[in-house]
Structure formats: C-alpha cells, structure tokens
C-alpha cells in the first residue's frame, strides 16, 4: 500500500495508535515519519487528541455505551436508544444538579491499596471500609489489595490484586472488568435485567448465582459455583450456558469451540518457567545470559496503604497460569521453594495470594525470611505463612487455591532477582 494523501496517512496512523497495523505497515509508517515532518505533526496531533478525549471523558462521565451483552436483534436500535438514554440522563442530571451523587453500593471489605474514581472524576486513592459509592471505577492497586462491594440488594462482588472494573447500577448492574479477577455472589436479579459482566473477550449474563471470573487481554475464564451464567464470546457471538461446578474459557480465537467443562481436580505441584518469557509476571524479565538462567529483577513500586505513609517496594510477582482449567491447590504439607539472588542481604517478604477452590478471594498470606547468602534457595513449609505480617496471624487454611506469589523487599533495593518459584507436595510425583 502506498500512502498518497493525508486521509490515508491519518487512517494508518490511527490504526497504529490502536496497535492495529501489520509489521509491513509499521515499517512503511516508520519510513514516512523519518523523512516527513508533516507526518510527525499529524501523529503528534492524533496522540494529543486521544489524550484530550480521555480527559474529556473523565470530566464528562457517562455509563459506557456499548452493544456488548445486548442481544443482536437489539443492536440496530442501539444508537436511537443511546440517544434517547442520553436525553433522559441529561434531564436527570439537570434535575439533580447540585445534589450529592446517589450511592448504589458500599465498600464492605477493603484491604491493601484500593483506588476509587467516582462520577465527576473524583479520585479516592485509599478507599476505606463502609464508604458509600455511586457508579465509578475501582482498582485494586497493590499486590495485597482486595475489595468487596455490596450492592443495595445484597449482591457482592470482590476484586483482588491488580484488577480494575467500572461499575454502574441504574436498575441493571453492569461491570466492565478491564483486567484481573472478580468473584461475585449475586442475588436474584429482576427478569430481563441480568447483571452484565463485560470483559475484553466475553460478556456474562447473571440472574443470580455465585461465580468467579478472571480476565486477561486475550482470555476470560469463568468458573461457576452455583446457578447458571450465560457467556457470550465477543469474537464470534457464540454463547454457552455454564452450569454449577463447570468452567469455560473464552479466547479471541474463533477456531476454539466454546464449551463448558466440569471442574477438574486441582493439581498440587507447579513450577514457574521464566525461560518462556514474562507472561503473567511483574518485574523486569531478564533472558538467560552469562551462565544465569532467565529471571525476574525486582522493580520499585510506590504503595500508599490506607492511613499510612507511602512505602517503596522492590518487587516481582509470578502468577499461577489460569488460562488452563486446572487450579493449583495448597495442602498443609505443601512447600514453597524459591530460588533467587540479591546484591545485599535483606529480609525478603513473600506473599501468597489465594482464592477459595470454588472461586472468591481467600486472603493474602505472608512470611518474611532473611536469606543467609546472596545466592539462595528457600524451602518454606506452607504452614509458616500467616495472614498478617507477624507470627500471631491466622495460618493458611487447608485447600486454598494459589493464584500469585509476590516477593519483595521493603524500602531497600537489595538487587532482588528471582529465578524460579515452585510448589511441591510430597504425595505427588
């Protein structure tokens, strides 16, 4: 393709900014930008406009208008309906001018650093328990963060570490899960007004049930504990009703059949494989080199716990892969084995992020050993982990599901690097 006019160039730059260009198109754009100042100016303009749209959207919040989750026969009516809804919303806004935001839920449980962005763009960096909330966006910012939101009808949704969701309830509950993990215990919803959970790859319709959903950039996993959830895969519109004790994975691949399968027996052993890349990890991924294996180097992160001073952590984390249907269960005689290195001796805090086997946040469990040498291997019985960062805390109950292992130093940059994370159980091969 040759770019002969501004319109064509603008279109290609618009697609580049959306990461929707082929390698050849990116090369063509590169060569054009290298020699054409006007093309650079146009790209700068598109970047500026994108940022300005985000600013505008934050200053003029609206419920997300999308046809996702709406049966296809309704979709042709979306624009007139959206326009009508906009008129109604404008009228309601006008009538409510000056009144406080109406709360539709409250923060029932909060741990770690949880950020709330409400209507009008107001931001609360450390959300506290029992805060009444209107529609808005909640983000579990820190590794140990979790928040449970209770709707007026008693329905509960819980988000845990590194999750973000925009939530509204204007008679129909809608959750846009941008990323991460969400568990829900949903009371029966009105007929025709199911709770809708939107992810990047699927839409879930929920009338009243208990389930757990994990969403990544290209995959959504749904695990239903009670009742039935209807999942619609966005890539092709195919749907599946997922009954209790079943799970399903929706990806961006049309080739994969969308079908629910019965929950599998959990595995008891797992070993990270950092040689395959950085997927599911936090930290700077370093390839194998100079006799060292592939590893994760701790990166600094500023964390602001509620009512406490900000603290810098140097951390890495490794997620137990969830795209596969088998979960990793921790038993009392399980052990966590870690291999790593540091440039100076310092205490290392290790956090296990866990869920109930059937879904739902089960808490974070910690241990704080100090390695004796710079190159070390720690072999830690699971029974040593405690719910809080002291020996007095509650021990890890039998049978929880391990989701993520987080390893960090507090305040000090001790040059922490992690080569391998492993969970072992004596009864398994």
């Amino acid at each position, binding site marked *: 393709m040759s770019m002969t006019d501004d319109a064509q160039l603008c279109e290609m730059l618009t697609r580049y900014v959306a990461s929707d260009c082929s390698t050849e198109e990116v090369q063509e754009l590169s060569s054009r930008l290298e020699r054409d100042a006007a093309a650079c100016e146009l790209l700068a303009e598109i*970047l500026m406009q*994108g*940022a300005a749209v985000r600013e505008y959207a934050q200053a003029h919040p609206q419920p997300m208008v999308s046809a996702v989750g709406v049966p296809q026969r309704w979709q*042709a009516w979306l624009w007139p309906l959206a326009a009508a809804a906009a008129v109604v919303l404008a009228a309601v806004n006008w009538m409510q001018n000056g009144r406080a935001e109406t709360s539709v839920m409250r923060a029932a449980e909060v741990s770690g650093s949880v950020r709330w962005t409400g209507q009008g763009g107001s931001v609360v960096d450390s959300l506290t328990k029992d805060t009444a909330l209107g529609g808005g966006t909640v983000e579990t910012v820190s590794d140990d963060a979790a928040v449970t939101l209770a709707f007026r009808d008693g329905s509960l949704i819980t988000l845990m570490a590194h999750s973000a969701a925009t939530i509204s309830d204007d008679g129909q509950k809608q959750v846009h899960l941008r990323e991460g993990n969400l568990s829900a215990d949903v009371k029966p919803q009105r007929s025709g007004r199911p709770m809708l959970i939107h992810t990047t790859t699927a839409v879930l319709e929920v009338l009243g049930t208990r389930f757990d959903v994990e969403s990544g950039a290209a995959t959504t996993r749904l695990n239903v504990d009670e009742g039935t959830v209807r999942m619609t895969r966005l890539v092709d519109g195919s749907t599946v009703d997922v009954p209790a004790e079943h799970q399903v994975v929706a990806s961006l691949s049309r080739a994969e059949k969308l079908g629910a399968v019965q929950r599998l027996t959990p595995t008891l052993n797992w070993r990270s494989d950092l040689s395959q890349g950085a997927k599911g990890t936090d930290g700077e991924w370093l390839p194998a080199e100079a006799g060292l294996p592939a590893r994760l180097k701790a990166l600094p992160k500023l964390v602001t716990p509620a009512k406490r001073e900000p603290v810098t952590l140097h951390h890495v984390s490794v997620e137990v892969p969830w795209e596969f249907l088998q979960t990793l269960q921790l038993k009392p005689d399980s052990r966590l084995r870690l291999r790593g290195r540091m440039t100076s001796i310092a205490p290392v805090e290790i956090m296990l992020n866990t869920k109930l086997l059937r879904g739902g946040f089960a808490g974070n469990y910690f241990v704080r050993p100090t390695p004796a040498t710079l190159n070390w291997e720690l072999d830690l019985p699971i029974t040593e982990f405690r719910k809080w960062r002291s020996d007095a805390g509650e021990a890890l109950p039998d049978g929880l599901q391990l989701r993520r292992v987080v390893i960090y130093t507090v305040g000090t940059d001790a040059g922490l690097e992690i080569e391998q994370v492993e969970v072992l159980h004596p009864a398994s091969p």
Partner: protein
Amino acid sequence: MTEELLVKTLLDARPRVVAGAFVVVRDAHAAEDVFQEVLLRALRMRESFSDEGGVLAWARVSARNLGIDHVRRAGRLGEILSELALDALDARLEEIGDAQRRRVEAMRGCMEKLPEESRTLLRMRYDEGRKGEELARLLRRSEAAIYKALSRLHQALRKCIDGRLAEEGAA
C-alpha cells in the same frame, strides 16, 4: 537538584513523557505506569541531575526505553516504529511544547460540537480502549469503516482546533 524541584519538573512534563511512552506501548494505563516508573527511577538517581533540562531529556529517553521493554516482554517488538521515526516524532513533540496544552483546551469546545454518535465513538476508542475489531462488531460496521470514521474525526477536530486558536489569536 532538590527532590521537590525534581518531582515538580517531571509532573509538569507528565503529558509529554506519557505521550512518548504511549506512542510505543499504545496503552494508556501502561503509559501511565511507565511515567510512574520514570519518576521513581529519577528520585533514586536524583544526585546525578544538575538541571531541569537534563532531567527532562533523561526522562524522555527512559520513558521510551521502558516502553520498548514493555513491548518486548509482550513479544510485539516488530510492531513499533523505528528508532529514527520515534526520534523524529520526539523532535516534533519538543517543538510543539506548551502549544500542545492550548490545543487540548481548544479541543474541549470542539468535542462539544461533535454529534453524540461521534463523541461516543471517540470515547469508546480512546477512553474505553476498544480497538477496531471490537468497535466494528459492537457498532455493526466494518473495521475499515471504523478507522475511516475515526480518521475523519481526527481531521475534523484538527481543523476545528486550528480555527479556534486562530480566532483566539485574532481576538
């Protein structure tokens, strides 16, 4: 350089640094994460900076490199612009400087003048982060039509912004 001045310098330059990261990672959240990381690294290296110009030059390069690391980890290194193209864009962003803020302000009025449908498309693309294929499916249009519409909106907004700034200049 004092910690206070360092933080102020970088916060003032945030849109510029974030734009430099965004053009590489093309994800608003990831670009903000890059900025946060640049800020933390700058604080750690505070003693090495003697003036604002030095810290800004370092921040721009660091943001780009961190963005490239992010893309490399995702296995998408072949999908970003060449170093020379990024240099050329960087030079252009530098020239624009403070004028960019005036364009953002002018754009608010231009957004208001757009039809609701156009504003929604822009929101879905740039605020909600939806891309061509998803927008096409949601709006029941082809992907090509979506990008054509977005491209036309960018051009219309540019014209509107230029017009508003020209009016302000004349007033």
